[in-house]
Structures are given as C-alpha cells and as structure tokens.
C-alpha cells in the first residue's frame, strides 16, 4: 500500500504526522454557531433581500409622510384659493396647486391616508373572515368543507368588480361603503390559503397531543393550528393591501368612491387627466405615489413569501 501511494504524484500525508487530540466530553456537543429559530431564518432571509427591504423602507416613508405631512404643512386639503389656481411646483407649493388652488402636496398625502386606510382595513377584514371560514373548512373537512367550499366557489366565480360597482350604485358612496363592498368577496382568497394550511397541520403530533389532553376543537384550531399557519397568512395579508388600494383608486377614478373635497388618488387622477396638457403636475404626483405605494407593497409581499418559503425561492 505504501509503495503504491508513493508512486502516485499526489502527496499523501503519512499517518505518523497526525497526533490524536485529547477528547473533551464536555465540549464535544458544543455547537460553535448559535442556533437559529424559524423566525430568525425568516428575518435573515428577508433582511438580505434588497428589493424587499427597499419596499419596506418605502412603505415606512409613505406611512410617515401620510401621517405628518398634512399636519406640518401650512395648507389644508380643502380650502380653495382661486388666485393661486394651477400653480406649477414651487417653494411655497412643492407639488403645485390644482384648479381650485388647493395645495397638491397636502392633497397627495391626504390621498395616501385614504389609500393606506382602505388597504389596511380591507386586508384586516379579509383576514378576520378568511381565517375563521378557512379554519373551519380545513379543520372539520368532509361534508362541512364541501358545502362551505362550494359556497365560496360560487361567490368567487361572480366577477368581483361588478359586484362592488353594483353595490356602490345602490349605497351612498363613502369610504365605509367601499370597504364593506370590497370585503364581500375579498375574504375568499384568504379562506382558501388558511384551509390549505390547516389541512396540512391538523394531523401533526402537537395537534393530536392537544386533542388527547382534552382540548376543545376551537382551542386546537385557534391556539395551535392558526399560529403555525401565520407565515402564509401574513404574506396574503401583505399582498391584499395593494389590490385593495388599486380597487379604491379605480372606483374613485370612476366617481364611485370617495367624494370631493376629500382627496383620494383616484379622484385626483381623474381631475388631473383633463388638465394633463397644460398642468401635468396635477396628474404626475398622485400617479407617482399610487404606483410607488403599490410597488412597495408588492415587492415587500414577494420578499416575505420568499422568506417564508425557501423552496420557492430556489426556483425563482
């Protein structure tokens, strides 16, 4: 054997160059790196995703501006000042003024308030209904699941925006109406996500253990299963926000949503479109910030999904 290894040009260290290390029992089980919990992994993956972090920073900035800009500005969003109508952006009016002389800077951030409010509240309502409905579907299974799923399918097949428009024709247009109408079919997606998760989780050992200890169905579902499905739920929640913001802007653009003088990006876009030739800034700023907000939420939601689901990440 030794001769053979000498023939090879590869240098093979001989055995006598090695010295045994003293074995320390106490340290043999020691792991140099600190263990990471699942949540730490998620956070690590999220923080290292530059695009998602850009989205998060943008969201934070937009929220801060929406809260503080209207308070700190000397103008308000509804007072007319016809002598200063259609002013281009300047030091006194950063984003210019509209046809009634209202400050576009304040109106843009008031619009952000409306959009964020609608987006977040609609997402939370979807969350509440979707988690309960989907949780019950997934947990009980069988006939209950079949009937509830069929109801959801029938509702889902009805075109969403048509229902919203129909309801808005009937009800007084207001923020509340928009949110209520959006929630009528908006929760179904969330319900299906939760259902899929619960079906996977309900036969896990900890659920069985809890059942063996005599926990009630509701306790198992809401204390054990739902918290373990929080990842996909949170991702869906984040991605619901931009679609709700879009729907609000869409409806307000058509004149079915928020009514003047309340500023909404949709109504501002609709106002600005007739003036686009001569006063393009009236269209530019709501357009820019609507797109930025949707971009930020979409990118952050994508990043969250990648962070929660590393298997998906590999292929995409």
């Amino acid at each position, binding site marked *: 054997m030794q001769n053979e290894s000498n023939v090879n040009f590869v240098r093979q260290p001989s055995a006598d160059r090695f010295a045994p290390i003293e074995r320390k029992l106490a340290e043999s089980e020691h792991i140099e790196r600190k263990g990471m919990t699942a949540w730490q992994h998620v956070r690590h993956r999220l923080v290292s995703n530059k*695009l998602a972090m850009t989205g998060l920073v943008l969201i934070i900035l937009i929220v801060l501006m929406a809260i503080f800009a209207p308070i700190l500005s000397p103008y308000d969003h509804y007072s007319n000042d016809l002598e200063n109508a259609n002013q281009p952006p300047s030091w006194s009016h950063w984003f210019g003024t509209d046809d009634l002389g209202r400050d576009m800077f304040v109106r843009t951030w008031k619009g952000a308030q409306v959009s964020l409010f609608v987006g977040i509240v609609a997402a939370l309502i979807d969350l509440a209904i979707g988690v309960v409905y989907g949780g019950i579907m997934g947990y009980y299974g069988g006939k209950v699941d079949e009937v509830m799923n*069929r109801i959801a*399918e*029938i*509702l889902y*097949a*009805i*075109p969403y*925006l*048509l*229902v919203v*428009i*129909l*309801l808005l*024709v*009937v009800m007084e247009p207001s923020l509340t109406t928009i949110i209520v109408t959006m929630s009528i079919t908006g929760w179904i997606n969330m319900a299906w996500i939760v259902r899929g998760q619960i079906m996977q989780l309900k036969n896990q050992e900890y659920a069985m253990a809890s059942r063996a200890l005599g926990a009630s169905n509701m306790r198992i579902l809401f204390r054990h299963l739902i918290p373990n499905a929080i990842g996909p739920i949170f991702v869906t929640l984040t991605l619901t926000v*931009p679609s709700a913001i*879009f729907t609000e*802007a*869409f409806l307000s*653009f*058509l*004149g*079915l949503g928020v009514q003047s003088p309340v500023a909404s990006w*949709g109504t501002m*876009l*609709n106002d*600005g*479109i007739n003036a*686009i*030739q001569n006063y*393009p800034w009236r*269209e530019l700023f709501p*357009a820019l910030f*609507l*797109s*930025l907000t*949707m*971009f930020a939420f*979409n*990118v952050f939601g994508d990043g969250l999904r990648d962070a929660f689901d590393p298997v998906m990440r590999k*292929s*995409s």
Partner: protein
Amino acid sequence: MVRFIVNKFFFMLLSLFVLVTATFILMNAVPGSPLQREKATSPQIQKNLEAYYGLDKPLIQQYGVYLKNLLNFDLGISMKKRFYSVNKIIEDSFKYSLRLGVVSIITSVTGGCVLGIIAALYHRRFLDNLAMVLAVIGLAIPSMVMAPVLQYLFAVKVRWFEVAGLEGPLDYVLPTIALSSVSIAYIARLIRSTMIEVLHADFIRTAKAKGLSGHVIVWRHCLRNSMLPVVTYLGYLVAGVITGSVIIEAIFAIPGMGKFFVQSVVDRDYPLIMGITVFYAVLLMVSRFLADIAYALVDPRMRLYSSKAGD
C-alpha cells in the same frame, strides 16, 4: 372528463343565477323610482310609464319576467337613452371593446411569453434582472396611471399617435399597451418561474443528451410545459381586460362597452347597468369555464385525475 365538464358547467350556471338574482334585488332595493324626474309628472303619466316598463306588477312577477327575458337574451330598454334597447347599445359598443380586448390579450400573452422566456434562459444574468425589474414596475403601475402617462408622452408631447378615438390601426397602440402592461408583467413572471423549474427537469436533460438543438428544446419541450399556468390565467386575463377597458375607454374616448357602463352608473340607468353587468358576467364566467376545460385538455395528468376522481 365529461363529468368534470358537466360539473363545472353546472356550477357556472349556479353562480350566474346568484349574480342575476342579486343584481335584480339590488336594483329594486334602490330608494326612489328610476322614473322620478325633477319636474312633477301627473299621476296618470306616471302610471302609464310604470305600466310601460312593467313596474306596476308585483316584484316576484317582475322577477319572473326579467328571468324569462334574460333566457331570450332580451335585456330590456334603456331608461335614459330614449328608444334604445339595452341589446342595441351593447351590440353597437361591444365591437370596439372586443377588438381592443382581443388585441390586448394577444399582446399580453406573446409579450409575457417572450419576456418570461428570455428571463428564464438568462437566469440570474443581466437580461433576467432587466426583464424582472420591468415586470415588477409593470405590475405596480395601474392602468389609470399608465394610460394618461402614455397619452401625455406619445400623443401630446411627441405627436406620434392620436390622443383619442379608435379608427386606424395606429390608434390601437397606446390603449393596448396601457391595457396589457399589467398582464404582460404577470405572465412574464409566471412563465419565468415555471420555465426555470422545467429547464432543470429530467426530460430536458434527456433531450439535451439526445443532441436536440437548443431551439427544439426551448420551443417544443420547455414552452409547452411552461404554458400550463398561463392557460389557467387566461380566464382571469379576460376579467382584467374588461375591468381595465372601463378605464381605458374613458381615457381614450373609445365608444366601447366600458364607457357605456360608466355612463349608465353615473346616470343610474338601471336596465342598462343590469344588462351590461349580466353581459360582462356571462362573458367572464364562460371564459373561465373554457380556460378550465382547456387546462384539463392540455395537461394529461389533469385528465387522468378527473376521470378517476370525477372532479
């Protein structure tokens, strides 16, 4: 397979029935009569008008008449546009929407596929990053922002296209881009992620080992398998094009159905709202139904599953 189709068809009808009934209830729940005018009309005229529109009968009977007329594809008479039936309005306006819609759907699918394939083939290289940045931006810019921006840049600043109307083939360019940018982005991302997965599949390695050329592998083997999610998305694409067209037609002053829909909502012209809603709903549900069947036909696994499970 047959059972799968029958099942889907049955549930499509059920959803449609729910929508039709809901529409009827909603339109009748509105306070005040649609015949009310600012000027007071004499009771006799009011009565005659009600009789003409069938509003004097009990509600359940009105519902029956409404359903019967629907089955005969009769959507009633517009209350604001005198002497126009809803059918006539839809007939006149739908051709514009249809043309624009078909052009945008074709643009979305081809544009999305090209972008997605390029991104997948150049995975994690410059072209991939560029395509995906474009896709993310495309997803974030809604049509009511895209349309005026395009209009401003290419019809007002640079006079390449007309600001409004839908006459010549050039007029289609801007509305089509505005209408399909979101779905191009969506399809590109869809194609890219499935294609990357397919490119690593065993049968592609076999194809390479057999010595097939790159083109054959990409077009015959990869693309066909990556198209599956796009087929499912087609049903939703139609929905997107319809809702988008409502805005695009208003901005580009195209006399299509979306424009009339908005007009009817503003005017509170209930028969027209109901008629267009039902028409849109049928269009959407049928296209989703067809997409489901197409999916089952394209994917052999689905066919096998459905013949066994009957769903």
